[in-house]
């Protein structure tokens, strides 16, 4: 652990994990807010609290399983492919899949159920990516979970603003996920015997191929589904006539 901390690889993984947490964790809080929207004021805070707690607990459980599973041959290939998909998905402007609509509950239990299901889906993305970037280093895994907590709790508005101001961040994030995926694919127990004798740059080449393919496919898909250049979308407006006008 200490030796690892002294090498550059460790710090690169740390940066990768922070970036992943920001990119994949930002919408978690928004989903929780959406799920609790119709609750009465008092229950809303309860719902948000339970939702956040659920997100964190689910992450810990999922990452525990992910680490066990990724040791099994072939599953790193599955994980790597999933990660490529998550990267491509990140680059899509809007979810083209219309909702299954678990939502809209006016009851605390219903809202919590929605949050837990959504948490599970969202945490899965995050957990696979963090597990891949950590490469089995438990310190990094724990670090990854700890960093994601404040982002889920407070970071959503900032992440939204970040993506609004610097859209390139999303492209970068997709590329990063592809990079990690390429590395993970080569790390699978089935693949390692074949790459063992090969020079070290093979790993970087696989990562680069992963990054480039995610960005290329992601942008291509995004172009295809893009709507014609948007007119300003006004969702609400009104007029107030004042009493002291024209004075």
């Amino acid at each position, binding site marked *: 652990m200490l030796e690892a901390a002294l090498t550059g690889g460790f710090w690169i993984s740390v940066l990768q994990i922070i970036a992943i947490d920001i990119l994949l964790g*930002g*919408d*978690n809080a*928004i*989903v929780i*807010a*959406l*799920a609790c*929207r119709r609750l009465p004021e008092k229950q809303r805070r309860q719902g948000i609290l339970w939702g956040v707690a659920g997100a964190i607990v689910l992450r810990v459980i999922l990452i525990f399983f992910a680490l066990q599973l990724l040791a099994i041959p072939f599953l790193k290939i599955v994980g790597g492919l999933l990660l490529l998909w998550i990267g491509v*998905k990140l680059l*899509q*402007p*809007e*979810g083209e*899949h*219309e*909702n*299954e*609509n*678990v*939502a*809209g509950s006016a009851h605390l239990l219903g809202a919590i159920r*929605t949050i837990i*299901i*959504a948490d599970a*889906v*969202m945490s899965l993305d995050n957990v696979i990516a963090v597990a891949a970037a950590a490469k089995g280093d438990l310190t990094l895994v724990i670090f990854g979970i700890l960093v994601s907590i404040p982002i889920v709790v407070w970071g959503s508005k*900032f992440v*939204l*603003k*970040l*993506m*609004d*101001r*610097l*859209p390139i961040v999303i492209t970068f994030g997709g590329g990063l996920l592809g990079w990690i995926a390429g590395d993970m694919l080569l790390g699978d127990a089935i693949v390692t015997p074949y790459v063992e004798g090969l020079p070290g740059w093979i790993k970087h080449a696989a990562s680069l191929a992963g990054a480039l393919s995610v960005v290329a496919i992601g942008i291509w898909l995004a172009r295809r589904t893009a709507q014609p250049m*948007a*007119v*300003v*979308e*006004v*969702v*609400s*407006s*009104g*007029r*107030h*006539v*004042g*009493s*002291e*006008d*024209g*004075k």
Partner: protein
Amino acid sequence: MLKLLVPVDGSANSDRVIDHLIHDRAAGEATELHLLNVQIPVDSGHARMFFSSSDVEAYHREEGQQALKTAREKLDAAGMTYTWHVAVGPVAGTIVGFAHEHACDRIVMGEHGSSALTHLLLGSVASEVSRSASVPVMLVK
């Protein structure tokens, strides 16, 4: 009548813009006020997976109303006439697009929004607006 577009994000800074407008109205020419709050779209596939688009839209509407609240209260108290709008989209682009579509003569906004940290890290919406707008942009310090 001079048509003013006033982007409002609910921060103390955008409220100061409103104060300035109220203070200024006695001196200046007659103006038509348009308050605009822009909500950043919840683009994530996750939110769209679990919530209907009408749910997401209602969320944006509520957040927008919330952001407009103090500005509207100030204008109401001053007895001024105004129109308010909540739009969804990339913030700077939507402000500029709105000004264009509604043929506004001028954009009046705060130098930066709610958080000094965000401003430091990401730069301000105001500078992006003043760079890309086709009408004069007035920044209130």
